C-alpha cells in the first residue's frame, strides 16, 4: 500500500492563509504529475501540441513535469516566474497544501513543508476552504472524476483478463514489459484526436473541454473493443 508522508489533518474550515510572492523557490526539485486534462491545458496555454509539450516539458511519457532547469528548476519556470501560471497543474494550485479528495466528496488537506528560503507568507486569517476556492480547482477535479471512471473501466478489463489467464494453462509465460512500465501513447492527446477524427472525417473541436471529451470518447471506445474481445 502506498502511504503518504503527509498528515491530512486540515479540513476546509481549518484556519489557514498563504500569500505567494512568486519567489519561485518552491518550483525546484519537485515531483509534479500531470493528468491528461492538465497536460492538455498546459500545452494549449503555451500554444503547443501535446506532443511538443511532452517532448519539451515532461518526463515519463508526459506524466510528470520536467525539472531540468538551473538548480533543478521546473522547465516552465522563467526569470519572471511561471510561464504557464494561468494553466498551472492542480498540485501547483494547491501548494503549500496537499489535497486528498476522497470519492465521497470529502476533502482533507495537509501542509507541505515549504522551501526554507520561500518568500511565501503564512497566516490564519482565512480558512483552507477560502484558500482553495481562490485556486479555481473545480475543472481539474471534474476532469479527474471523468478519467477516474475510465481508469475503473480499464482496471475492470485487466481484472477480467487476468482472471481468465489464471484458469488457462499456457506453456509460454506472459511476458509483459513491466520494468519499466510502458509509457502510454494515449497521453499524446493531440495525436489521439487527429487519428480519431481523421478516421471519421470530422474536424477536431476547438475548445479544451471538447477536446478532452473526444479524448475520453476515443479511450472509452478502445476499452469497449477490448471488452468485446473478453466477452468472446
Amino acid at each position, binding site marked *: *500500500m*502506498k502511504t*503518504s*508522508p*503527509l498528515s491530512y489533518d486540515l479540513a476546509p474550515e481549518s484556519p489557514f492563509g498563504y500569500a505567494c510572492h512568486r519567489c519561485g523557490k*518552491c518550483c525546484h*526539485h*519537485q*515531483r509534479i*504529475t*500531470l*493528468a*491528461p486534462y492538465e497536460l492538455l491545458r498546459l500545452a494549449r496555454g503555451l500554444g503547443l501540441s501535446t506532443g511538443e509539450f511532452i517532448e519539451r516539458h515532461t518526463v515519463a*511519457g508526459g*506524466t510528470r513535469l520536467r525539472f531540468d532547469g538551473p538548480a533543478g528548476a521546473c522547465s516552465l519556470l522563467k526569470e519572471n516566474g511561471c510561464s504557464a501560471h494561468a494553466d498551472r497543474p*492542480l*498540485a501547483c494550485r*494547491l*501548494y503549500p497544501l*496537499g*489535497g*486528498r*479528495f*476522497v*470519492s465521497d466528496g470529502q476533502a482533507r488537506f*495537509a501542509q507541505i513543508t515549504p522551501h526554507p528560503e520561500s518568500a511565501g507568507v503564512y497566516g490564519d486569517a482565512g480558512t483552507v476552504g477560502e484558500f482553495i476556492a481562490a485556486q479555481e480547482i473545480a475543472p481539474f*477535479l471534474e476532469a*479527474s472524476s471523468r*478519467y*477516474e471512471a*475510465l*481508469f*475503473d473501466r*480499464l*482496471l475492470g*478489463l*485487466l481484472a477480467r*483478463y487476468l482472471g*481468465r489467464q489464471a484458469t488457462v494453462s499456457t506453456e509460454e509465460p506472459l*511476458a*509483459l*514489459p*513491466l520494468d519499466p*512500465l*510502458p*509509457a*502510454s*501513447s*494515449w*497521453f499524446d492527446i493531440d495525436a489521439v484526436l487527429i*487519428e480519431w477524427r481523421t*478516421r471519421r472525417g470530422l474536424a477536431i473541436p476547438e475548445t479544451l473541454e471538447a477536446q478532452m471529451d473526444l479524448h475520453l470518447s*476515443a*479511450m472509452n*471506445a*478502445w476499452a469497449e*473493443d*477490448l471488452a468485446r*474481445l473478453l466477452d*468472446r
Partner: protein
Amino acid sequence: MTNQPENQEPLQDETTSDISRRELARLLGAATALASTLGIVFEDVAAQVANVDQVKANLYLLPADGDEKKRVLLASVTLSPEAKAKLMAAPNATIQTQFIGVKDGKEQQLRFMDKSKGAGKTSAKVVEQLKQ
C-alpha cells in the same frame, strides 16, 4: 468495426483469440499512467480499520430509485475489538450479510440475502508535491 487505428497491430491475438500482448501492454500502460497522474491510491480495509477506534456496521434501506441521500438507517452494529481484529487480519475476505428470521425460537434464513465485498478498495485522489 473496431476502434483500433488501421496502422496498428490487431487488437486480437491471432494465435489465442485473445487480446494481443501489445494491446495488453497498452492497457497496462494506460491504467498505470492514469493511476499515477490522477493520484489514485488504494487503501485496504486493514489499514483503514487500524486507524479507527471502533468499527460500526450500518444497515440501510435504500429507496426504489437507489438515492443514497434518502436511505433509512435500520440498524447499527458496533463490532467488538475481537471482530475488529479479525477484520484487520483478513483484509481480502468477503463479508456476508444474512437476514435471519426467528419464529418460535427457531432461526430461518430469509429469502433476501446480500453479499457485500468487505475488503474492497477505496480510491482517493491524492495531490501533493513530493521531493524527487
